[in-house]
């Protein structure tokens, strides 16, 4: 079952300049009771987005109309804590295709990649520059170029390259999914099992 492809994306960005954003903030545990993958975007950052009376908190970037786009920018150690893939589903369901930070937690990184969302890890200084750019001009646009593995601030042309495992890059460019890949490898896996008996 193919995942959604990514190639190049030009978009505005939504900034959340906070470090150590854990997956409990991205999607609180009480919203993990669903048994399908849809609708999690409604509760993305629920407790930062809404107050105790379920009223939107206007200062939170997702509620601030001046911020929009398919790129989410967060502080370092983004996605730490619980392994819940619901965090990746919430981010994808809300409409983000790219998450930019200076540092991602390991499980989160795998989870977003498995859902057609690209984690772009850049330097601490470039991240600060991106936050400054959005603060200065909330309509600033950014370009994600997966084939060339670069992320660019369009107004200044300032660009940084990012790492991605070539296999995963191929998956995202072509919409391949790991589970199909493994199913094709079943004969090899059965051979491996025999050697361990």
């Amino acid at each position, binding site marked *: *079952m193919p995942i959604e492809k990514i190639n190049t994306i030009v978009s505005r960005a939504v900034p959340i*300049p*906070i*470090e*150590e954003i*854990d997956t*409990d*903030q991205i999607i*609180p*545990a*009480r919203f*993990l*009771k*669903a*048994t*399908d*993958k849809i609708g999690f975007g409604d509760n993305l950052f629920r*407790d930062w987005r809404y107050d*105790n009376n379920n009223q939107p908190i206007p200062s939170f970037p997702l509620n601030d109309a001046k911020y929009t786009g398919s790129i989410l920018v967060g*502080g*370092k*150690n983004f996605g*730490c*804590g*619980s*392994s*819940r*893939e*619901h965090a*990746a589903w919430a981010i994808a369901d809300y409409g983000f295709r790219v998450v930019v930070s200076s*540092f*991602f*937690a*390991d*499980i989160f990184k*795998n*989870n977003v990649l*498995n*859902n057609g969302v690209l984690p772009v890890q850049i330097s*601490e200084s470039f991240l*600060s520059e991106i936050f400054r750019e959005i603060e200065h001009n909330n309509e600033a646009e950014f370009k994600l170029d997966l084939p060339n593995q670069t992320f660019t601030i369009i107004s200044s042309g300032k660009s940084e390259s990012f790492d991605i*495992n*070539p*296999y*995963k890059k191929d998956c995202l460019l072509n919409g391949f999914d*790991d*589970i*199909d*890949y*493994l*199913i094709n*490898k*079943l004969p*090899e*896996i059965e051979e*491996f*099992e025999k050697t*361990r008996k």
Partner: protein
Amino acid sequence: MGKTLFDKIWDSHVVSEISDGPSILYIDRQFIHEVTSPQAFSGLENRGRKVFRPDQITATADHNIPTENQHLPIKEQLSALQVEKLKDNSTRHGITYYGLGDVYNGIVHVVGPELGYTQPGMTIVCGDSHTSTHGAFGSVAFGVGTSEVEMVFASQCVLQPKPKKMRIIINGELGKGVTSKDLILYVLSQLTASGATGYFIEFAGSAIRNMTMEARMTVCNMSIELGARGGMIAPDQTTFEYVKGRKYAPQGADFDAAVEKWKELYSDDDAVFDKEYTFESADITPMVTYGTNPGLGMKIADSIPSVSSIEPSSQETFKKALKYMNFEENQQLLGKEIDWVFIGSCTNGRIEDFRLVASILKGRTKAPHINTYVVPGSYLVAQQIKEEGIDKILEEAGVELREPGCSSCLAMNDDKVPPGKYCVATSNRNFEGRQGPGSRTILASPLTAAAAIITGKITDPREFL
């Protein structure tokens, strides 16, 4: 060049490697629970497939269940549905399922070891970050997302890049009243919540060697809080004795043969780690956290650091954490009044933890204003609590013992801490809202939690020992 413990196990489980990509890693055992498995089952079925190796998968309901009246149907509809789905999916695919009320039900990371599923040298995954717990037996165990749960359903393998290797050595012997929980909270306070991201940790040194299996599980459990992919400890006589005779462990001559193999599971003298840290037990005291990630902890008698001592780029996040907790920089927490105490979870919900709690509660009574959630990690733990008379000690102290489950560690059920209230918790995460919206969590050892039950305040447990 020699191999690390991690290399030995990982390398022997690689089916093949994708050039410039991840490895196809064979998984010996997958544990599943109700929250992170339903979408994996439906994904698999949408592909028209069955579970490839159901005998190597074990299911238990734990995250989303009430901790009282488990003999009755679950009241909350969505939770009931999730648990029902786990049962149906497991039955349909031939997977062993331990449901509510089953003598072997409990928190997945408590049940796995106590039934002998968890053994040295294995690869183990579960859709839960605290799968690192099983590394205490010298296995490569790590948490995965639901897509990876589905990969294992489909192929008994996951695609994983090989992590880097870190060794953390703790020398010396822990002092009186200082537990393995304090040790790992201390390491967290030194290395931060992202100090081991990208690494798999091996814990070593005399402090680790002297620990029981329960204590080792607490250490490995929280390696994920350092950001690590997992944590592990080389198996030794303590490990073999724990595993021996357990339901799903090899028996008789098979066990002896297994031990001979397990004895080869250690890091060679000339093995190279990408990073190494050494700590001294003498520097560790009872610990508490003051912030909203487990790395923000301190010795119980210390003061919260000043904002200016924090790296400038992290100051805003630090101030946000203190604001959420309603603490000030430089504040001392000893004597701080608290409202709730939670004892349990996959970190500290085992029999040894309840023995520690009982050692302080015996002959004392709960502070009147304190509310508690005291929750065994499994039915077997609950049974042992009764056999050892710990239930009587709790009752005499005015503390209610609940039924097993994850409970207030993530508060998916009703075991919530009200907004603004402080809870001293033996669990693993103090994130904002972790124990219910607005709740304020202070992580500590079972001893420190028990002391807080008596005094109603943050208290050095050594006063009671």
